[in-house]
């Protein structure tokens, strides 16, 4: 199997952009990734697109060739991957697999979502399509409701508190305020976070990620060819994808996400590292509780200790394990199909030392965790300096 490197990254700003369509966002991110790598369009051998619900949000199908052609790229395989909020994580996993196997050398992987053209109840309904429509969703479950039920159970089993959840929101807003591409560049206080408008008890609006438009892209190549594109290649040291039941009520213990544990174990094994070796991480904080569960399932802390660890400030940029220095889905924004590749861009930026005032000191080994639904898809990527 060949070693794979990320040789170019490109992102649009995340936010609400009424004047931008899905394709223009995806094209912008892709062009930026090619420019970043100094690559020509003709060097791209395959185009993998992560997108959750373009057909529902904007009505457009056949998205991968549509976006590729928008960049002036035709004549190569162009394929869309859908895995709910892990859509572009899944696209990235399969792109890395294909390059590692020797099928292609250079693949452009883009993630995109255009969400803000629909009113919130409609967005809520489209997102709920990542749940079990014949069961939990019919009963009235939304994604905030599913994660609220995870939060309630986590509070019941481990004593996790509202303050601990709010600490995640306060920290991610503080990081997002320093990220020029973040959707919400606003610092919030603990008091604000605790007194937000209720969305699904115990979660308030400050516990929920944002409804955003945006795109992100990476160019990957075999490590032995990386120097053709960049003097700062970042290695994909470990990567794994795993699945689980879609319905929350079919998962045995909802305070731990099995697919995350399985994919993390495999990725650590492939990279030859332990959880304690990881220096910083971008995790899938679609809701504050999801960040707490993630740092537990990734093995950074013991089960039940994610809340106290977060409240103690250990996951801040200056803490012992910086988590979501980008602002996370909470503040950076969550254009769902773009999130997985967006996280890869964020980790690469840190490893290259290009994160400006958000730069972490120990930056040679980072992890990205991209989650689909209430845990039915998980993609874990471990990236390292060359």
């Amino acid at each position: 199997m060949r070693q794979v490197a990320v040789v170019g990254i490109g992102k649009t700003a995340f936010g609400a952009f009424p004047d931008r369509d899905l394709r223009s966002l995806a094209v912008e991110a892709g062009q930026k990734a090619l420019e970043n790598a100094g690559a020509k369009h003709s060097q791209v051998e395959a185009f993998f697109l992560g997108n959750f619900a373009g057909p529902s949000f904007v009505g457009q199908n056949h998205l991968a060739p549509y976006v590729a052609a928008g960049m002036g790229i035709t004549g190569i395989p162009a394929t869309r991957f859908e895995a709910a909020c892990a859509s572009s994580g899944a696209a990235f996993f399969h792109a890395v697999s294909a390059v590692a196997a020797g099928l292609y050398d250079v693949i452009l992987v883009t993630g995109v979502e255009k969400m803000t053209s629909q009113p919130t109840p409609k967005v809520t309904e489209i997102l709920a399509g990542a749940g079990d429509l014949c069961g939990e969703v019919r009963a009235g479950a939304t994604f905030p409701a599913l994660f609220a039920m995870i939060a309630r159970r986590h509070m019941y089993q481990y004593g996790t508190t509202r303050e601990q959840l709010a600490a995640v929101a306060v920290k991610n807003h503080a990081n997002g305020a320093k990220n020029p591409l973040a959707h919400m560049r606003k610092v919030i206080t603990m008091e604000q976070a605790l007194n937000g408008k209720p969305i699904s008890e115990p979660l308030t609006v400050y516990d929920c990620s944002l409804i955003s438009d945006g795109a992100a892209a990476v160019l990957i190549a075999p490590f032995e060819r990386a120097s053709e594109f960049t003097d700062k290649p970042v290695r994909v040291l470990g990567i794994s994808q795993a699945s689980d039941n879609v319905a929350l009520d079919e998962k045995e213990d909802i305070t731990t996400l099995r697919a995350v544990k399985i994919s993390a174990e495999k990725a650590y094994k492939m990279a030859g590292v332990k959880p304690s070796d990881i220096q910083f991480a971008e995790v899938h904080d679609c809701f504050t509780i999801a960040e707490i569960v993630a740092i537990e399932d990734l093995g950074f802390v013991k089960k039940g200790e994610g809340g106290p660890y977060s409240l103690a400030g250990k996951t801040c940029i200056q803490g012992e394990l910086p988590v979501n220095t980008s602002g996370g889905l909470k503040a950076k924004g969550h254009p769902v199909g773009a999130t997985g590749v967006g996280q890869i861009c964020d980790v690469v930026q840190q490893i290259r030392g290009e994160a400006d005032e958000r730069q972490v000191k120990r930056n040679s080994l980072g992890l990205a965790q991209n989650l689909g639904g209430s845990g039915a898809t998980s993609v874990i990527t471990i990236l390292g300096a060359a």
Partner: protein
Amino acid sequence: MTNPGSGTVYTETVVFSPPEAYVNDVPYQLAIVQLESGRRLTGRIDGERAHIGDKVKFVEFRKDVAFFRKSI
């Protein structure tokens, strides 16, 4: 549909921000009920607010959704 019988609340939430189909229902309580039969079912709680560990009794199906009520 068969009567799921009684059970215990495994987890619950009160929904304030609904999907389009349920905009007229909010706020409503949603729960995963651990049924005595051993399986779990997501349904609604009618009437008094139920918490984790509370016993609930099946009331009826409304549009294929199981409604439960807190046992007294």
